[in-house]
């Protein structure tokens, strides 16, 4: 996996001005972005997924240009083959677990049928042990189950990369530890590269090989291996 990203965007609201100016390259399968809330981590992920349009910059994944302000390329989120795990999971409350997981497998105008489970969806249902709850609705299942369903839904359409936005923030501490291990073993067994953002140093240590620290909209430091956090190598001049 290779990833080259430069994103520039100014956000102005009534009482706050924020400038996002992110630039990094990585060929790691496990990237973690770390920083306090409000530092621009989520904005960066949203830009990669195509949910936020940068003013200028370039986003290249595996040699595929998703965004390039100079040549006017801006793929819609639908064509980026990027999976996004939302902080609150954003499961569709009007659809069952099975329908949620199969949601991205057809791109037409109709939702998956209630009692049908296509094989690609069934694979993830079994992988996450969700067989017993496939006919339940998101409001009927627990926090850990919600996260598994959200992951299954994200992985079913075979994305090129998975972006995880604070994946454990909605969980209580005991469950957090367990889900972190689950995600770790998922990383080990899957070919799909992942970008995890978190404000929790523990998440970053366990889930990232390449760690980027973000503060106030900028990459503050970058490190690999077990030397982080909080020790980061200074960035090479051309990236920052």
């Amino acid at each position: 996996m290779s990833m080259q990203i430069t994103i520039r965007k100014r956000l102005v609201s009534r009482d706050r001005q924020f400038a996002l100016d992110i630039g990094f390259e990585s060929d790691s399968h496990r990237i973690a972005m770390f920083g306090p809330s409000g530092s621009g981590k989520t904005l960066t992920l949203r830009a990669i997924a195509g949910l936020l349009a940068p003013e200028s910059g370039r986003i290249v994944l595996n040699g595929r240009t998703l965004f390039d302000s100079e040549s006017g390329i801006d793929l819609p989120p639908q064509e980026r083959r990027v999976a996004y795990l939302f902080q609150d999971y954003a499961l569709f409350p009007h659809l069952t677990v099975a329908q949620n997981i199969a949601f991205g497998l057809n791109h037409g105008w109709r939702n998956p049928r209630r009692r049908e489970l296509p094989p690609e969806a069934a694979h993830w249902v079994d992988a996450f042990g969700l067989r017993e709850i496939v006919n339940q609705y998101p409001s009927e299942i627990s926090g850990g189950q919600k996260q598994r369903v959200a992951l299954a839904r994200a992985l079913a359409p075979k994305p090129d990369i998975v972006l995880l936005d604070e994946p454990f923030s909605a969980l209580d501490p005991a469950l957090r530890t367990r889900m972190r291990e689950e995600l770790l073993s998922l990383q080990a067994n899957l070919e799909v590269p992942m970008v995890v953002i978190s404000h929790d140093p523990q998440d970053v240590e366990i889930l990232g090989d390449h760690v980027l620290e973000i503060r106030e909209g900028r990459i503050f430091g970058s490190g690999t291996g077990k030397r982080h956090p909080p020790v980061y190598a200074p960035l090479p001049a051309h990236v920052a």
Partner: protein
Amino acid sequence: MDAVWVPLLLSLKVAGWATLLNAILGVAAAYAISRWRSSARDVVDAILTLPLVLPPTVLGYYLLVLVGRRGVFGAWLDRIGIELVFTWQGAVLASTVVAFPLVLKSARAAFEGVDHQLENAARVLGVSETGIFFRVTLPMALRGISAGVVLAFARALGEFGATLMVAGNLPGRTQTLSVAIYEAVQAGDDNTANLLVLVTSVTCIVLLVVAGRLVPPAARGVGEVYERRAFRREAVGK
């Protein structure tokens, strides 16, 4: 009994068509306005809401000015063979305009209440914008929209002022229930008036009960009923 049946069936026919038109036009307009980022949006919303506050006679007058024989579009409508003044189609037009804001208001609120994160989730999963409307936005807004459509039907059924001005009072052709009651009272025909009033009241009660069942449960999108169901399942499990 024809004195009752004919206006009753005509009223239901007119209100039914008006509701169908509003379900399509009102929902489309509400969706467009809820997505439209422009300062003109509030002005357009205000204009489309006018029928709710204007006296029906004023609306009826506007409609006559627009679609009457000598109206702005009158000659054009005449040429393509559409006659709206003194026809039941005219009554449909009047009822539609009068009830339109009820669908618009509730559908707009329902659309604006849909969590954008869910639409983004669908976007990232590769579903087209049209697909997102039919698979996420519309189902999530359906409860609010249905409530507005039921109200619009009730309003269209009781329409009097604008209908009388546009469609007139032709027994068997444009004389709806409310107009028939007015005429019976004017003519001192108390028996007919009593019967019509009774039938109208019963019809409205029946319709409201039926409509209440048609509106999807509080759950669709909000999760209340699902939670209740989960709770019941848990209770049974123990």
